[in-house]
């Protein structure tokens, strides 16, 4: 006895294929939506910044005069901030990842730390700002300097590096470890000589992404009280500093006093986006280059 009626199936086929086609277009449009917004957003910012980005703008110090004002301070501040965030998150992130993946594997402790890291990733950045303000700026009496901001940001982006490093370490095939152990290598020798070199691209990708997150964050630094202002160019981690998004924030705020500040803010956004694109491209390049290696 036949239950499946071929004619019936045939009749329905047209509708089903049509539904599939329509859905495909809908899904595609959804994907486009985000991209269209991206284009509008960038177009608006770029249009507003036209005529304001030049060498002076990049190399000058801050000034109350919009014609003379430049963002060298914010650029240097951003670089100094990275100089703190990069090594600190790298050491903490990779160290934590190795511990979790290679030493504490499947233990209770691992579960606990892992949960903790996932939670930390979800803690709002303003709350990190409060931590930084209370612990680094006040309790450790660092003030609103690069080190305080950098340590705060390092903790903020730590989960990104930990998770990326864990993934990279996990992606190192077990057979490479076995091969190393099989030669009589100790655990640390195996990690140092085999696991870390092999997972380095993944780790670097994570670090770059973490850095680009750090230099785009405004809220925690505003909470810590990072001055965006008339200060000497920073030349060390104990100097006061500002970074690009904070500069954007204050310039926009002050545009009620001096209308041209809004254009400066747009110009700063463009520079910031260029930096972020560059960093993301590097991350993507690394990822693509080393993706299929084993």
């Amino acid at each position, binding site marked *: 006895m036949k239950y499946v009626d071929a004619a019936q199936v045939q009749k329905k086929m047209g509708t089903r294929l049509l539904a599939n086609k329509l859905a495909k277009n809908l899904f595609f449009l959804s994907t486009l939506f985000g991209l269209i917004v991206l284009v509008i957003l960038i177009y608006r910012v770029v249009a507003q910044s036209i005529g304001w980005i030049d060498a002076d703008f990049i190399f000058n110090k801050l000034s109350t005069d919009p014609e003379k004002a430049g963002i060298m301070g914010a650029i240097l501040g951003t670089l100094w901030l990275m100089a703190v965030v990069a090594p600190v998150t790298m050491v903490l992130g990779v160290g934590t990842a190795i511990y979790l993946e290679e030493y504490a594997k499947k233990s209770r402790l691992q579960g606990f730390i892992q949960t903790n890291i996932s939670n930390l990733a979800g803690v709002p950045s303003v709350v990190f700002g409060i931590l930084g303000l209370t612990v680094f700026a006040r309790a450790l009496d660092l*003030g609103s300097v690069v080190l305080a901001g950098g340590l705060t940001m390092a903790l903020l982006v730590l989960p990104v590096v930990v998770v990326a490093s864990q993934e990279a370490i996990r992606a190192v095939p077990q057979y490479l470890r076995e091969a190393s152990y099989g030669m009589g290598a100790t655990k640390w020798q195996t990690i140092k000589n085999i696991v870390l070199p092999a997972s380095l691209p993944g780790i670097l990708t994570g670090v770059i992404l973490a850095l680009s997150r750090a230099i785009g964050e405004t809220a925690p630094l505003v909470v810590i*009280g990072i*001055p*965006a*202002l008339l200060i000497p160019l920073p030349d060390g981690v104990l100097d006061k500093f500002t970074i690009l998004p904070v500069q954007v924030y204050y310039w*926009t705020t*002050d545009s*009620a006093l001096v209308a041209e500040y809004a254009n400066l803010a747009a110009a700063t956004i463009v520079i910031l986006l260029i930096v972020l694109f560059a960093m993301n491209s590097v991350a993507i390049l690394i990822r693509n280059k080393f993706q299929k290696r084993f």
Partner: protein
Amino acid sequence: GEPAKGEGKGGNEKAELEGSVVIDGSGTVYPFMAKMAENYMTNEQEGVSVEVSRAGTSAGFKKFLVKDGTDFNNASREIKDEEKTEAEKLGIEAHEMKVALDGLTFVVNKDNDWADDLTQQEIVDIFLAEKDKKKWSDVRSDFPDEPIKTYGPNENHGTYEFMFEKILEEKALPEKINLQQDYSTLVDLVSKDKNAIAFFGYGYYASNKDKVNAVNVDFGKGPVEPKVETIAEDGDYAPFTRPVFTYLNKGMAKEKPQVLDYAIYTMNNSQEVAKETGFAPLPDEDVKATVEALEGLK
């Protein structure tokens, strides 16, 4: 070397100073102080580095009231008792310097052709009324029958505190007033809304005269236009005038000649810079008295 004599504007023959002056505090005072600092570094003492930041009045006091804290704290309000107590505990003498005057200015849309002037009471009523209940026609019958939209800076700002404490006499603003963190937003909002009325410091109006109109206020003796001349402590706009300050750490002034020099420079140039940055200048005798007091610190 010998600390410079506060000769004022043209002290060319002064000894060269170096070192730094660190200033933090109110965002309201920031434009004034930033301009001042820039002028000082270009025209007066190239060797001195003046840092101006804007953590906010209170956050600024937190940096001021610590050992080796900031040299100056800008404030859009007077120092509070809690802060005085803290200062005493630390042995910090906070020397109050009134640097300029700010006039609370009420602004309306360019297309608003009815509310050229309002009485003080009308303004208070407008801002205390529950939204949706108040229409322009409720204020005066010849005004249009349109709802009033009220805007203002949020509790974060000294301006709000001044409005709330001094003008509304601590009667709570209705919840539905639209408060903003940024002045630029306020300007933008009023410039786009025919029925809007907002308040902020005179400087923000002065910079945006092309976008919004100011309301002349009648304090009982006829409408007064808010402008640099009327926003004096004894001027016609006085009820809506408030001083803005910077607090000097006396200990620092004694220790670091450049700090005192900068303080004196600030006072001597305050009138000019105030006008440039949207504040009203202090009367001459106030400037003089403050400068004298500062000279006494040497």
